[in-house]
């Protein structure tokens, strides 16, 4: 009996731990659970601003998760759910703002930066190549001058 006790204790406590970790939401379909996870990771908590509502313990995040769950159960699409929450809390809660006229610069900035960087690199490469080809090609006149200078310096060393 006493041997069994620690095992029993372990089983009991692990059950408690499991209950805490396991999701309190129950889904009929696996894809609904995936949608729930994606949506809650995509939504930003308005209170604790650098967390998504999946990670946040703030009461408002709990409310938002409940709403997402309720709407998924009600058959709403992902976009409908995002829009419904955005209507209440503002664009702030979207980690990925919609692509529209006002946000196009925001979305295009990485591409612009890469393109700009490419232009700079290309410019540097072209310039250095041009510089290098000029440097190797001495005119006949320059060669004569160079040889003269070299000869003079050799003379200086020997004296």
């Amino acid at each position: 009996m006493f041997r069994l006790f620690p095992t029993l204790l372990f089983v009991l406590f692990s059950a408690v731990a499991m209950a805490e970790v396991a999701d309190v939401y129950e889904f009929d379909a696996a894809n609904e659970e995936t949608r729930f996870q994606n949506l809650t990771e995509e939504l930003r908590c308005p209170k604790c601003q650098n967390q998504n509502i999946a990670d946040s313990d703030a009461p408002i995040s709990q409310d938002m998760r409940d709403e997402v769950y309720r709407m998924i159960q009600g058959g709403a699409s992902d976009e409908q759910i995002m829009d419904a929450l955005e209507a209440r809390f503002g664009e702030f809660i979207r980690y990925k703002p919609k692509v529209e006229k006002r946000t196009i610069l925001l979305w295009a900035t990485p591409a612009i930066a890469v393109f700009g960087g490419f232009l700079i690199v290309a410019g540097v490469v072209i310039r250095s190549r041009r510089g290098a080809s000029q440097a190797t090609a001495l005119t006949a006149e320059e060669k004569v001058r160079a040889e003269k200078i070299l000869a003079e310096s050799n003379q200086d060393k020997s004296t």
Partner: protein
Amino acid sequence: MKRFLLFLPVLVALILGVVLFAGIGKDPTKLESALIGKQVPAFNLTDLHDPDVKLDQALLKGKVQLLNVWGTWCPSCRDEHGDLMWLAREKGVSIIGLNYKDDRADALVWLDRLGDPYQATIYDPKGTLGFDLGVYGAPETFVIDARGVVRYRHVGVINEKVWEETLLPVINDARENG
């Protein structure tokens, strides 16, 4: 052209400076309400003082009013309570309370002890109206115009400075251009 390129870093630094300077002094935790310019969401809740009295969005129409979200669990609400009393008594501001995620008995004790600055208090124990209003942290105060349209939302404590500099101009504008 080469000369111009030399000044490019200075130019970049200047532009960055202007952009970043615009952000100084802005509190990122204070978000603008998504409901500005929209009607107060429909609701059907009870009065804090009397569970038999039903309240709905009609309560927030007819004149420019403040809608103050509070709860006894919220220390900052306690902090601003004296200023709300001052606004209601000295300035004659009509304030509607939204008792948010609270216990009715606790809330009544609070108003009994500290005074009741509210024309009426909506009892929202589950925070449903709060959720529809986009409340993410009490205290929050909404300026609602006579047509029941949200004009402004202040996140945080109200005091004399906030009243003079922020709320009063919005209220005056709402009264003039109702």
